[in-house]
């Protein structure tokens, strides 16, 4: 018997729009759970933000990851970062990070900031990928631009996405918007996301729910686990 998900108690409608979805057509996307965004000495820490805010979703995400692996969902991890020679770093992105005192590519306590292969760029142990899971390396905020994510999803027959990660208003929202335009039915989890500004976290979640779910729905990880039929 194949596991199914839905209807999930969600805002603004029971998710997904088409009632229930086989777990095998659903992907769990874990966005940028990297030391640079939620670890000590990483990029976000260096900019002076409170990493407890970006770490808040880790326990719930770890629990949901275990559940997703058990029921056979495709799990995809993303990492934001740049080539060591910074050839894929837009000039304005570099300039802005320098303005705020944490220039991408410069040396920090966790190695060169947001550079592929450095300690700060790695995914934190609580939610690290297991062998065989897809890891998408992205140069931007969105996980679709300049990556093979769309191809990977289509190759696996995925039509529905469950989104976790950081930060809610930046990389998670950008990826959700890209996915929504591409026709994927999206669910973002309020307890598996987080932002450097709690107000932006709340507003980003609220935006999803407007106009009948302009980008999809909001729920919690427990809602997803409860709505799973093994």
């Amino acid at each position, binding site marked *: 018997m194949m596991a199914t998900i839905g209807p999930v108690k969600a805002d603004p409608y029971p998710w997904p729009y088409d009632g229930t979805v086989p777990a095998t057509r659903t992907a769990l996307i874990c966005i940028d759970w990297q030391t640079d965004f939620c670890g000590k000495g990483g990029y976000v820490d260096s900019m002076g933000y409170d990493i407890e805010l970006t770490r808040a979703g880790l326990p719930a995400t770890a629990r949901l990851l275990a559940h997703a692996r058990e029921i056979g969902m495709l799990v995809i991890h993303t990492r934001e970062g740049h080539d060591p020679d910074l050839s894929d770093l837009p000039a304005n*992105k570099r300039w*802005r990070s320098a303005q705020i005192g944490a220039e991408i590519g410069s040396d920090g306590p966790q190695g060169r900031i947001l550079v592929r292969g450095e300690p700060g760029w790695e995914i934190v142990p609580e939610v690290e990928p297991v062998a065989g899971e897809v890891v998408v390396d992205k140069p931007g905020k969105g996980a679709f631009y300049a990556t093979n994510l769309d191809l990977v999803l289509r190759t696996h027959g995925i039509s529905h996405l469950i989104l976790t990660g950081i930060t809610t208003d930046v990389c998670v929202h950008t990826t959700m918007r890209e996915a929504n335009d591409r026709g994927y039915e999206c669910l973002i989890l309020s307890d598996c996301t987080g932002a450097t500004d709690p107000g*932006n976290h709340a507003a980003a979640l609220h935006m999803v729910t407007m106009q009948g779910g302009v980008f999809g729905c909001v729920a919690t990880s427990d809602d997803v686990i409860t709505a799973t039929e093994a």
Partner: protein
Amino acid sequence: MPTVYAKPGPFSFDMDSTALVVIDMQRDFLLPGGFGESLGNDVSQLRRTIAPLAALMAAWRAAGLPIIHTREGHMPDLSDCPPAKLNRGAPSMRIGDPGAFGRILIRGEYGHDIVDELQPLPGEEVIDKPGKGAFYATDLSEILEKSGIKALVVTGVTTEVCVHTTVREANDRGYECLVLADCVGSYFPEFQRVGLQMIAAQGGIFGWVAQSPEVITAIQE
């Protein structure tokens, strides 16, 4: 090089490589009695952008600079409308249904076109997009590359949906984006405020925010 007072810091742009982008100023979203209002939205929140935008477009054209307009909409047979977009949330009115100004958000219908005050001139690009972002499934990237555009002055509606999605796409592609607070609008004042705040947060994570009179002065100097 014109420089504009902006958040989080001054924004300078090269007149030869900057385009004005006017997003989805369509009758379906802006006219009283249209689709937007039928969903219970206050269209005056969007209509306040028309006058400043008309003034900006006049100055922009007078300076000989390029304008790119976008329209959200779908083919009459809805073959480019994802099922999730069409069916989610059991809407009272769906894309493709008959509305006050023709079939809702369908290309070629009166309501799908741009409001009279801001109509494109012959020769200006009009991008028809099936999604919220103006880059996905359109030729916007190719147009910008071909014309050597590096920076975008972004206006239109709505702030937190199509404007934000397009700015996020542009930013990932390396374009500098200046969003004009008085020329973008949301049905919801709270999202207008937080939408603009998110753009300029963290040292300008998605771009810069300014007011249109600043830009008009800068390009006339």
